[in-house]
């Protein structure tokens, strides 16, 4: 599975990346001391046997993702690394504050642009950037959603630069995925190395499904006392199907496909063995475009005809709401710090990665002059595709990309090549530093909550900064250490 949109980073430049486990003088960071002590005591055979055990278990349990464009039904494991990524509590507390702040502002932004558009009127964001964006949904204009919440589940991709600063690389507000790996990785670690968990106070994550369900119930249409929540999937051939089935099971709700639902009198029902049953909240894991063939793509076989009408009438809650994509677009990303100031009157706790917007002449000039050292991304690209990593590209590749940029500069943004932080990781040559990022999952309902940690993705190839599972990325368990 590809954990939603592209978080691909540039290649390491001159600066030495921040090592999560070791200080620059080679001594161990305090929050890793006890783990490292344990690790040194483990015989190599035990560790490789445990790695094999993890693989076998993941296969048997069917924790796989479907691979598109390969043999029908091909399923692959996402490589799991047994060395956890450890965050000390004080770092987590700061991150948590920054993430909540950011998601509050993003929700306020989406509500605003579908209502009064104050932020556009105030001139903070150029109106055409929002209103002409293909992810802006005019159908949502003036529609009130319960609690004013649009992005109920947000996956915010965080990286750490060479100075040890956390930065937001990307917001995922449509159908962010990967949380099942966060949960399964923890389960796997506890199964493989129970002794580690009695020796460390690792903040638990396994209540995530409860918190999620509670949030989903809290945003049911008004007047529904005991809402029926369902999870909507594109089906067993979707790359993230395991996660859909897993979450539905963990929450004890039905896993539905479009064909299981129908709309009658502006209300949504599912077909059951005991006749039609009313549905109140849909946690959907398919894109806007496929939700309702009458409103969006008419060729979609995945959706439910009439769903948008029921939604606009306020008879069903859809999470995430329709039209959130406009807020996680790469062309809107540079404005998020401004949103935080505008809606919350606060200064951002976690900064953005510096971003050049190539529709601006000055930025374009700079970027064209510095292509070999920058990362250039297509505004609507995802999954690490449609991008240029300057330092890792040949002259010819750079020149080819230069032509594309000059043809349609508004389609691109550029960022400095970050030396992403590294974490020790098992490789063919033993334990080696590999680049990582972090995707925490931010839930909004009655309140904004985050299960401590998130999904740590790791680029397994030496020197690679691409952590996407579709491009050779793996995952690690993420520990927030309580004291």
């Amino acid at each position, binding site marked *: 599975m590809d954990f939603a949109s592209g978080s691909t980073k540039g290649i390491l430049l001159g600066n030495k990346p921040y090592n999560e486990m070791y200080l620059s003088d080679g001594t161990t960071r305090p929050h890793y001391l006890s783990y490292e002590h344990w690790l040194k005591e483990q015989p190599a055979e035990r560790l490789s046997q445990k790695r094999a055990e993890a693989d076998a278990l993941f296969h*048997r349990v*069917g924790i796989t993702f479907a691979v598109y464009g390969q043999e029908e039904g091909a399923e692959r494991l996402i490589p799991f690394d047994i060395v956890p990524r450890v965050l000390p509590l004080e770092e987590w507390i700061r991150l948590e504050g920054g993430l909540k702040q950011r998601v509050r502002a993003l929700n306020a932004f989406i509500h605003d642009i579908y209502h009064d558009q104050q932020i556009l009127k105030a001139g903070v964001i150029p109106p055409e950037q929002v209103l002409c964006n293909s992810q802006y949904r005019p159908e949502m204009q003036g529609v009130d959603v319960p609690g004013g919440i649009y992005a109920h589940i947000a996956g915010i991709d965080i990286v750490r630069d060479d100075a040890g600063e956390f930065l937001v690389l990307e917001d995922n507000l449509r159908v962010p995925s990967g949380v099942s790996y966060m949960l399964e990785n923890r389960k796997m670690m506890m199964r493989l190395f129970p002794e580690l968990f009695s020796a460390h106070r690792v903040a638990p994550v396994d209540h995530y499904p409860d918190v999620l369900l509670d949030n989903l119930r809290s945003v049911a249409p008004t007047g529904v006392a005991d809402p029926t929540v369902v999870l909507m999937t594109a089906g*067993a051939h979707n790359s993230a199907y395991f996660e859909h*089935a897993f979450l539905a099971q963990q929450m004890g709700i039905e*896993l539905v*496909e479009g064909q299981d639902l129908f709309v009658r009198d502006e209300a949504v029902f599912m077909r*059951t*063995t*005991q*006749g039609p049953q009313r549905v109140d909240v849909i946690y959907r894991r398919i894109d806007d475009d496929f939700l309702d063939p009458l409103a969006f793509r008419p060729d979609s076989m995945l959706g439910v005809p009439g769903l948008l009408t029921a939604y606009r009438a306020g008879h069903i809650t859809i999470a995430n709401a329709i039209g959130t994509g406009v807020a996680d677009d790469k062309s809107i990303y540079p404005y998020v710090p401004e949103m935080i100031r505008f809606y919350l009157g606060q200064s951002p706790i976690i900064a953005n990665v510096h971003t050049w917007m190539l529709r601006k002449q000055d930025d374009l000039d700079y970027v064209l002059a510095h292509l070999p050292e920058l990362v250039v991304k297509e505004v609507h690209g995802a999954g690490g595709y449609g991008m240029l990593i300057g330092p890792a590209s040949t002259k010819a590749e750079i020149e080819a990309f230069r032509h594309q940029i000059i043809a349609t500069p508004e389609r691109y943004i550029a960022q400095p090549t970050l030396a992403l932080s590294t974490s020790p990781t098992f490789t063919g040559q033993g334990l080696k530093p590999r680049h990582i990022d972090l995707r925490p999952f931010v839930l909004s309902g009655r309140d904004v909550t985050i299960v401590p940690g998130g999904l740590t993705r790791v680029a397994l190839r030496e020197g690679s900064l691409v952590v996407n599972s579709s491009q050779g990325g793996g995952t690690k368990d993420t520990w927030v250490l309580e004291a």
Partner: protein
Amino acid sequence: MLSRTADHLYWMSRYIERAESLARLVDAHYRMSLLPHDDAALAQSLRYTMTALQMEEAYWARHDTIEPRAVFEFVSLDREFSGSILSCLRVARENARAVRGSLTSELWETLNSTWLDARTLAARSSPHADIGQFVEWVKERSHLTRGVTIGTMLRDEAFHFSRIGTFLERADSTARILTAHQTDFQPGADAGAVPDPFEWSVLLRALSAFEVYRRVYRDVITPVKVAQLLILRDDMPRSLLRCCKEVYSNLRSVKNEHSAETERRAGEMHAMLHFTRMEDILSSGLPEFLEQFLGRVRDLGDRIAYDFLVPPAEA
């Protein structure tokens, strides 16, 4: 529960049961082929069996003659043939995967590893020596699946739809195996002596009934008793009566406001078998009886689909 979920559970169980039935059939014939035997008799038994299972056309599309070895491999391991044991295990697993959230994790893992292991076993280069082992293994996996189902699943709709699938498939399968052997039951064959003991042992072994027969009758094998055991014995797990009884009782546990007629027909089938005498079936013709029975099984399957699994739009 979702109609589609019930549908997947039903077919998951049907395909596992089908894989087991096929494994028994292959096993019975495979054993026969290892003993000193009449080649023509073995080939004929295989041909009748494939006819009853509606596999002949697919077989002739691949082969020119009935070779026991080729038949065994075709029925067991042919990945191109949708009716092979391997294909059944794949389809069972695909159905399970579509509703893995409605299964206990033990049941899902059992079905998943069955398919993963089957694929590995089938991919081995020299299956020549392994057919017997393969079908033995398939039976074990089916036993395990059934045990895990009964041992871990909540007795809710999911369980009942899965059981309906199992027993409807089993009824179908027993009736087809009997159909393949129907000439042995013809009037006159009942004189007491048995034309071909191999034939009977194949039939009985294919239904796990060989030892049971000895235990129940303590007598030589006679057609009437064989038919009695496989059709009308209430305590014989693969008999038609037993299967109908199970279908009926599971169906009653999931009834909805449309399903009264389906339930009535299932009850009627059960009552018919319950109150019929073997002599009556044989004198009015076993082939006709079996044909009618298979038609009723098909009808019941269609009605269950209509009432529960794939209800018409807006139902």
